[in-house]
């Protein structure tokens, strides 16, 4: 999976995030207070203004901290009933219809079917639920105000804070209900949709060359399966009858020869797909590079790829990519360590077209420098290749030391290879955790062996695979991400609906939703990092059919356009910085690529959602309080 931004551990994230949050909220409160003082001074004079401010602060504290859970529950239930009255079940019907016809749009021949299915179901759920809660939240309060139904509420001893909180909880409950229902349906849709089986294509079976038969004279066989669900597998079955359909489209099937001589289809039983619905728990290391003179670098070679995610190491040289893994506990890896890697391969010349590029892995103790070499492997591009490192490494091909040293100019580090003493070089077994790691840390070195060919890697391209988490739990976590987005949209919608009419609040919330989903693009627009200038300039370019690259001619019109753009872009930049980045809450990629959503992610996003919800609730409360109806 592509991980362009690493998740920061919660312990490192919390304090800086809290201080930023405190600063933002503080500034916001100061702005509100300042605005209150100014408007109060204009209307009633400065003394009265300050008195009113203090009174407001006092009543705010009272409204916030003496909210009645009972009244909130009643108001939330009112919101739910209001929603049911609006026939929201239609959304669920739309969802079911969408899912029923999903098969038309999903390509079963895709190389990674799970990715396709998960992306589809989670996007469909997300958009439907977001739109649902958006419309519910923005129209509810204004409609009640218009129909005067809110007056019947506010004549009761209800605080404005409770009105806002009740709506947030009520609509969030509706959204939650829909998410749960849709999640259940989606889970069934995905698991059933991807479930399939094959039969053995007996005509394709051939005895493995140079293999010995078993007691009954049966040979190990190789062949292929039948073509089902737009794919087939190659298969291998050993002499005793056990085998598997090899990995294709991210899964494999267990198979066994049941009876007979294995010449009939019925002689074999093929199991369900395995390895597809997984939630890998990757343990990432920290990546550094050595160039071909083995000088340490932060990045490898750029081979001219437009996408600079991967850095490359030159083959047939000392260039290496090194991952350092810390805090690895032996109990997490009882038998062996599965290293999963996805390499990029760059050839400077075609070379041997048929053969893959060979590579090598070393395991190094970061403290002592003791290094053992693993057997050579052949690179598989765009595929997750699994290399198993046993806890006890028997008879390694090569044992030596890689000693860290400063370079001659003391500007950077290098490593120097040193022969291991004979007793180590001839040692039969090496314990990964005793000999090759120090305090739970060890290094994995990757080298490309083919002269002038390159391997490309990024930090997340090589990781240790710990015990998998349950897929259903990961699926649930993915839906938790959607839930957080839904709550944010509810809060934004309610906040705007406290002072805007329904349609206007709807448009503004929709704007926030779109900008939140494309926040990075909006930031780029605001900071002028996109082609074609600001909105006015772009509009002129469209009308005059000018390309986005060349500068506009110097004229009065251009000056006006650029000045207007400057103001608009400043506003855009200011808005973009307080927008919640809704994409950050999307975790469908994790589920789709079969990676466990880390606890840090949940905690950080959860707290972020809470922070936004608190601020939006407070803003909603203030706006509600300023409305006439609430004062009565």
């Amino acid at each position, binding site marked *: 999976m592509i991980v362009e931004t690493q998740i920061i551990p919660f312990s490192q994230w919390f304090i800086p995030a809290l201080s930023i949050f405190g600063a933002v909220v503080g500034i916001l409160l100061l702005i509100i207070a300042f605005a209150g003082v100014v408007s109060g001074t204009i209307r009633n004079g400065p003394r009265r203004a300050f008195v009113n401010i203090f009174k407001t602060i006092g009543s705010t504290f009272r409204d916030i901290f003496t909210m009645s859970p009972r009244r909130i529950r009643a108001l939330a239930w009112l919101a739910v009933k209001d929603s049911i009255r609006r026939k929201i079940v239609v959304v669920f019907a739309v969802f079911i219809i969408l899912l029923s016809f999903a098969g038309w749009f999903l390509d079963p021949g895709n190389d990674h079917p799970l990715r396709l299915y998960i992306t589809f179901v989670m996007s469909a759920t997300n958009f439907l639920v977001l739109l649902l809660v958006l419309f519910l939240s923005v129209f509810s309060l204004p409609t009640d105000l218009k129909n005067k139904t809110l007056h019947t509420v506010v004549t009761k001893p209800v605080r404005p804070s409770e009105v806002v909180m009740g709506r947030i909880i009520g609509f969030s409950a509706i959204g939650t209900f829909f998410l749960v229902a849709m999640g259940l349906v989606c889970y069934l849709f995905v698991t059933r949709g991807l479930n399939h089986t094959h039969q053995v294509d007996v005509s394709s079976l051939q005895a493995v060359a140079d293999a010995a038969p078993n007691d009954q004279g049966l040979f190990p066989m190789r062949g292929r399966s039948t073509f089902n669900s737009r794919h087939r597998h190659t298969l291998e079955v050993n002499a005793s009858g056990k085998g598997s359909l090899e990995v294709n489209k991210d899964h494999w099937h267990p198979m066994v020869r049941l009876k007979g001589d294995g010449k009939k289809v019925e002689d074999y039983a093929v199991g369900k797909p395995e390895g597809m619905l997984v939630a890998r728990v990757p343990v990432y290391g920290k990546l550094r590079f050595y160039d071909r003179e083995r000088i340490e670098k932060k990045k490898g070679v750029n081979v001219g790829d437009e996408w600079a995610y991967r850095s490359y190491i030159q083959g047939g040289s000392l260039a290496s990519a090194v991952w350092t893994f810390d805090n690895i506990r032996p109990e997490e890896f009882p038998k062996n360590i599965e290293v999963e890697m996805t390499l990029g*391969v760059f050839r400077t010349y075609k070379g041997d077209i048929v053969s893959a590029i060979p590579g090598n892995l070393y395991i190094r103790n970061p403290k002592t420098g003791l290094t053992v070499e693993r057997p050579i492997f052949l690179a598989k*591009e765009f595929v997750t290749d699994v290399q198993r490192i046993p806890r006890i490494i028997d008879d390694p091909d090569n044992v030596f030391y890689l000693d860290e040293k400063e370079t001659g100019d003391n500007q950077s580090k290098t490593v120097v290879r040193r022969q291991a003493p004979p007793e180590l070089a001839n040692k039969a077994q090496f314990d990964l955790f005793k000999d090759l790691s120090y305090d739970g840390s060890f290094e994995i070195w990757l080298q490309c062996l083919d002269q002038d060919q390159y391997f490309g890697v990024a930090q997340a391209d090589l990781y240790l695979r710990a015990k998998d988490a349950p897929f259903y739990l990961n699926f649930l976590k993915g839906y938790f991400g959607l839930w957080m987005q839904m709550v944010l949209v509810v809060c934004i919608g309610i906040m705007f609906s406290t002072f805007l009419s329904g349609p206007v609040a709807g448009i503004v919330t929709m704007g926030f939703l779109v900008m939140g989903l494309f926040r990075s693009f909006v930031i780029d627009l605001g900071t002028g990092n996109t082609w074609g200038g600001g909105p006015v300039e772009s509009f002129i370019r469209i009308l005059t059919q000018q390309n986005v690259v060349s500068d506009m001619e110097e004229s009065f019109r251009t000056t006006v356009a650029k000045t207007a753009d400057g103001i608009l872009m400043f506003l855009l930049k200011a808005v973009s910085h307080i927008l919640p980045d809704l994409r950050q809450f999307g975790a469908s990629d994790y589920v789709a690529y079969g990676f466990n959503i880390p606890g840090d992610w949940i905690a950080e996003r959860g707290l972020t959602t809470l922070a936004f919800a608190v601020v939006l609730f407070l803003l909603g409360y203030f706006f509600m309080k300023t409305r006439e109806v609430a004062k009565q």
Partner: protein
Amino acid sequence: MTRQQRFTRKLIYLVIIFGLLMTLYYLGHPSTRSAEGEAGSPGGVLAQMRTEEKLDQTQLGQIDPASETLRLAMFGFRGIAANLLGLKAIDYQRTKDWSNLSATLNQIIKIQPNFLKVWDHQAWNLSYNCSAEFDGYKDRYSWVVKGLDFLKKGIEYNENEPLLIRSMGRITSQKIGRSDEKKQFRRLFIADDDYHGSRPKSERDNWLLGKQWYLNAHELVRNKGAIRTGTSPLLFYSEPPMCQMQYGSALAEEGVFGEKAKKAWSDASDDWIQYGERDIPTPSGAFIRLGDIERLHKEYSKLINELDKLAGGAREKLYKRKYEQLTKAQIMAIKVPEKLQNKDQKALAYEAKELLTVTPDEIARQATGANRNKANKLLEKIEYIDMDIKRIKRNQGVVNYDYWDLRAKVEQTDKMLEARQSTFEADKAMRQGNLPKANQDYLHAAEVWNLVLRESPGILSDKATEDDIDHLLKQYSKTLEQTDELYPDNFPLTWFVSFVVDHNDKMSRLIQAVNRGDESFNAGNYPEAQERYSRAIELWKLILAENTSMYQMSDPNTGSRILALVRRYAKTLKLMGMPFPDRFALRGFVWMQVEHSQTMRTIEGAVQEAHQLQSENKLPAAEKEMDKAIFAWESLLERYPSLIGDKSICNKIIEQMGLYRKILEAQNRPLPDPFPLQEVLDRYGSSK
């Protein structure tokens, strides 16, 4: 508003609504068919226009319910959606997210199933760009097939579009048959049951399937009135026969000869002749037949003869008059053989040739009396035919018509098949390390190639044949290199090497440099001569790099020319009192000749013998052997004066002279004075 007014207003609304509905019905009601499929109502104006312009969905191809649903659900926003998806697809490709890329492409085509360029471009993108991103050739192949599958789907939705069918033909034939991995791709394509389904293996050749797709496109244009887009008719109709030709070539590369290969080329020849007989429209609107040129030439000659008769010897008179008007320089230029002409002479000769041309118009004007009218009529015909000939020739050049015509005929001959089979067998023997067989087969192939080329020199007009022979020469050179031999004296393709070298684009500059060098040498301007010769030697180095077989003397005459130049260069340097340069451009070539010369063998034999005799203390006999070696070295240095600049060879000489010195010292004698190899000792230090 009164009740009456309200009623009137409603009535007006109803009338307007009815009027609009009727207009809408008149314009837009669909055509109908009975349950038996018989034509019913032709539909409204728009429906009729759709039918006329072949834009009706049912006329475009199959209808996909998913696509239709999506398009309806888009409410006219599909253009925007397709653009956004297009941008997403570009981003997925940039970040190498292949599964999302193919999923996004599937979404785009659901939205715009009849946008041909999307199908065409993205199929090409999948088969060419995406496949090239993968390192494993099997992955690359699977992406080529993904492109083909994509196009197949496009053809289902757009059955009457030759553009997509041609693309299918192009990818099937060219991508699979011409990639660097063609050997593997063709093998995988034949074995691909999932792609071919029930198609028998014998019908799975990519070139033949490609040809079939091209023919399907022709069929659509010819019989269903489909519009040909994306290429000129000339190329459009050349595609199937070219596929057949490539099929023949592929068979030879894969070692399939005999009747199958013969049949492949015979079919190719028939297809090409058929292509030549086809009426092909040209941009001017006139139709041409590429195969008509011979007939037109005959007719042209006949008419010219008639015209000449009518004008009674006017041609000769006109030519003579024109010749007399040429300048002296022009006359001199046309007398110089074309190969030896310098740039100015070439220009003058061209001018002269133009001036000497007697046109039919000039001849016709010479006719008098009643013949004048006849001549004018003939002239009209001649000009018309001449125009046709020129048009055909221009178009023939585009598809290399004559070459492929001849090639298809020659390739089916037994000799050609034998030549190719011998080369194939030799390559195989070479790979297996069976040098004697490889050597023998290459030589045999060269003999047969020689016969083929002598009989049909026209096939040398295209680089493809030159490349085939070049491959043979390179491989044969390798076997000779391993057996440490030079080309045999009677190598049958010596003339071919000479031909290729003489037609090298650097040759005219080289000849010019040598000629000017000679002129300067004869005039005693040695610095100028040295510079010119140096330039010529550099050019020879470049030519040799393109014709590596020359190192092993595949063309002794050309080799002698090079060595003669080296000697002249050495002589010039000597006259200037300059030493021969250390880094001599043709050092490798010269050393190869020296190494394989009889003299060198004599030297090695003599030195070895001298060693033996010295160890047996037979000093006078050893000295005699060394004298023999020294004499041989002296003659070698005289024949190959550049050796003096070759440090490694001179070190070898010095080493051997060390032995000579020891032999002499053992007899209490110094080196003779003058010593024949003193120049070597002076330049590189004396032996010890």
